[in-house]
Structure formats: structure tokens, C-alpha cells
């Protein structure tokens, strides 16, 4: 299935500089991991923030299609921001961070979530043994890598069709990065979703991406998939230098 986004347009202007992101059309294949690459200021993060609803598109004709079906909902994608602290509440416990994301309409479950949602929460926490052990520990007491993993798994509970990682892996160590990339692929397959990763790391992209989309000066300029004969570091570097 294909997720298609049309008419993305956003301008930032001030007395020092101006920037315009203009993407008439872009497509993501579900079940795959796609990397977004480009130099700093090319518009990758702005693009993610528009499709996650964090920024408003300047033109009101933004259209999102999942397959043939047009989606009206703004903020279709769920974004993971670079710092763990921007995705989770550090002063709450691990379990409480899962609770705030839990969707329930029952008043009693909202009032006493720890008691009435215990089974559902245990299931959510079971995604990672570590979370079960640390369930009642404040998140601020976890290490940076553990906080990143927690942020990933919590955001993954949304089951969003577009899962967006905005330079999220740049702050993790190698072992955590590899784990989260494995989990990203698993998420894409299990949820028939598209995982979109913004990264500057060519090696990681070559090893893990099904496809790379290139941004330059606010425009989406080209794409390349991992079956391409030029799928190598030298060629990618030459594109990114342009």
C-alpha cells in the first residue's frame, strides 16, 4: 500500500533569511523503512513536523491518501523527536508514561488507571523486559539510551501508519541504534506502516533503508531504493554533496 501526501508548503521568513519547503507530491510504501537525507536546512524536519501536525501547512489544500482513501485527519504521522526528553515525561514513572497514552472512554479507568488498566498496561510493558523491571521508577533516573528506547516503544503504541523518527537515532549508542532499527522494521511489517527516518548517517542508511529520499533546499529532489546499482557510500556521498 502507498501513502501519498500532496501540496506540502511552508515558508519561514525573517529579516535575516527565508526558507520555503515546497513538496507537491511525495509517496511512502508501507511495510518499508525509508530514510530521508539531505544537508542541514534542507527541510527534512519541517516536512516531518507538518505531517505529524506539529506545524501547520501554509496552504489549506494539503491532501493525504492511504491507498485510495483520502484521510482528513491532521497529524497522521507520529513523530519521535531527537531528544528523548521531548517525547516522554521525565518526572513520571515508566508505567505512568504508558498510562498517559492509553485511550479509554471509561470514567473509572481514567480515574484509577493503575488499578483498572493493570492487565492492558502489563501487556504494553511486556514489549521490553526492562520496562517491567523499571515500571515504577521515574524516567529521569533511567540512562539516556533507556529513555530513547522507552520513547520509541511508547510512540509505537500509537500504531500510526506513518512512524517518523526525526534524527532520533543520532543520540543513541550503537547497540541501542541497532535494536531500534530492528524494532522499526518489525513495526513497519506488523502494522503495515511506513517508518520514515531522518538521518545523516550514510552507513546506517545503506544498511537499513529500503529506500532513501533526498531533500535539498526545501525540495524533494530524488529517491533511490536498495536494489539500485549505485547503492553505495561513494555514490550517496556524491548526491549529498550537491
Amino acid at each position: 500500500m502507498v501513502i501519498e501526501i500532496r501540496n506540502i508548503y511552508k515558508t519561514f521568513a525573517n529579516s535575516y533569511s527565508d526558507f520555503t519547503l515546497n513538496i507537491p507530491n511525495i509517496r511512502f510504501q508501507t511495510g518499508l523503512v525509508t530514510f530521508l537525507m539531505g544537508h542541514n536546512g534542507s527541510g527534512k524536519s519541517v516536512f516531518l513536523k507538518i505531517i505529524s501536525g506539529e506545524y501547520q501547512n501554509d496552504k489549506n489544500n494539503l491532501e493525504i491518501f492511504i491507498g485510495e482513501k483520502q484521510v482528513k485527519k491532521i497529524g497522521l504521522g507520529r513523530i519521535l523527536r531527537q531528544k528523548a526528553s521531548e517525547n516522554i515525561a521525565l518526572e513520571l514513572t515508566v508505567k505512568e508514561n504508558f498510562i498517559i497514552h492509553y485511550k479509554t472512554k471509561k470514567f473509572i479507568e481514567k480515574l484509577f488507571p493503575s488499578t483498572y488498566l493493570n492487565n492492558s498496561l502489563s501487556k504494553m510493558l511486556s514489549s521490553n523486559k526492562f520496562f517491567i523491571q523499571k515500571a515504577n521508577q521515574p524516567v529521569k533516573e533511567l540512562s539516556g539510551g533507556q529513555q530513547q528506547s522507552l520513547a520509541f516503544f511508547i510512540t509505537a503504541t500509537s500504531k500510526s501508519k506513518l512512524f517518523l523518527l526525526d534524527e532520533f537515532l543520532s543520540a543513541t549508542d550503537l547497540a541501542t541504534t541497532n535494536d531500534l532499527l530492528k524494532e522499526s522494521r518489525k513495526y513497519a511489517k506488523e502494522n503495515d506502516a511506513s517508518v520514515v527516518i531522518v538521518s545523516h548517517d550514510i552507513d546506517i542508511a545503506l544498511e537499513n533503508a529500503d529506500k532513501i529520499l533526498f531533500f535539498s533546499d526545501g525540495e524533494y529532489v530524488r529517491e533511490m531504493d536498495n536494489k539500485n546499482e549505485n547503492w553505495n557510500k561513494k555514490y550517496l556521498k556524491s548526491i549529498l554533496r550537491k
Partner: protein
Amino acid sequence: MLDFTLLLILNEGLVFGLFALGVYLSFQWMKFPDLTPDGSFIIGPIVFVKFSMLGFPMFFSIFAGIFAGFILGSITAILNKILKIPSIISGLIVSSASFSIGWIILNKPNQYLESNSEFFNSSMLSNSYSLFFLLLVIVLIVIFLFQVFGKSIWGLRLRAIGENQFLSKDLLISEKLYFIVGLGLSNSIVALSGILFIQRSYSVDINMGIGQTITGLIAMILGLILSSKSLKIWVTVSLIILGAIIHKALILFTLELGLPAESFRLVSAFLIIILFFFMKKVDDNFLKGLRWS
């Protein structure tokens, strides 16, 4: 029988303990440096007295006073979240306006309590005992409500978006609504403490709120130092109440040492400087994440 001085300290401490819980809700849970309590501490009792004088039933008048505090807190949130006025300035605007609003409502700057505004109509000693037991019951109820609300999905979300501004978008909830209700609740508690305060002072005065937020902060910081890293909400809020009692006892002690009565604000100012020093040792991040804008 409790010593009368001790009774006075306990009553004053419990009243300002409630005040401090309002400050705790805004400063610690919502990370909002709210100065509205200076205003809601006077508007709550003034509205209560006015409604009582107009002949409304006592319970209705109390509710009206508490609701007036809620409105003030909500206005501060609206100024900040909708009109984008910085948080400190929003609170200052509302607390400053409260001075005039209180005067307009009362039609004069102060008012002695009439019998229909007094909870208890007996001798001062007997009143103090009755007030003590009433305060104890109210404080226990408020601690219980803090515990339940703080662990409910709404309370957890309020605490989460207070700390992390991005989370309201992730959770698809309205930050504006949460802050309007959150600051409304914190100032409702402060308004209630004002209504209880005038049961001890037997009068309401438009000046009685000036600088009281500092008093609440002292009790809050004392409570946080005492509770250290406790995760239990009921423990922390109980210790904030204890902090308020300790603060009032210290003030009385310094007066007993011979310092003039007008120096108690100065004593409080020195105390808060010392407490900040200790607090930094307990929690290095204390008040770091406050939202100033």
C-alpha cells in the same frame, strides 16, 4: 488540651498549607510560575463575604468564593495560553487587578466578618478548636483528592504536559484546556485557604494577599526537602502541609526572640534564600523547567 499558641500555629500552618498546595499544583505539576494566588487569596474570601452578606446560604457562599478563585486562575491561563502574555506577567496582571476587583465587590477596602460569614459563633478559644478540627478534616480531604487526581489519567497528563510542551500534541489533548482547568483548580484551593484564613482573622482586607505566594513557596520547598525523592503524592503533599506549619512556627519563634512584628516578611525572605540552597542539594533540577513564556 493543646496550648493556645500551638493551636494558633497549627491553624495558621494548616491554612497556609492549603495555600501551598495550590502553589505546588501550579509550580511543580504544571511548571507554571503562577503569581495569581496573591489575588485569589483575597478574591475568594471577598466573594464569600459578599454572598454571605447578601443572605446566600453559607455553603453556597463558600462555593462562590472557591469558584471565584477558579475564574482568576483560568483568566491567568487564558492570558498566557491564548493571548501569549508571559506566565509571570499574566499572574501579575490578574493579582494586581484583584486588588481593584475586591475593592469594587466590597465597596470598601476591608470588612469585619458579620455573624452570617462566621463558621463558628463562640469564644475565641472554642472557635480556634473548632477551626482546627475543621481544617484538619479539610486538609485530609484535599490530600486524598490530590492523591486520586494526581494518579488519574487527567492528573498524569496535566503533569506530563506541564513538564513537556510537545506531549499535548502527541496525546491529542488541548494544552489550553488543561492549563485553564489546572490553574483554575490551584487557585480554587488558594481561595478556599483565604476563606478559612478570615475565620481566624475575623475580617477580610484587600491587602491581605500581597506577597503570600512567597509564603506558599516556602512551605512547598520545605515539604519537598522533607519528602526528598518520595514518589507518593500523599506523602509529598502532607509534608508540604507540615512545611507550612514549620514556617509559621519559625516566624512565631523569631517574634518571640524579640524581633518586631513588621520583620516577619524579612525573616521569610531570608528563609527562602536558605531553603533554595538546601533544595539544590536535594534536587538539582528544581524549578529549572519552569515555563516563563
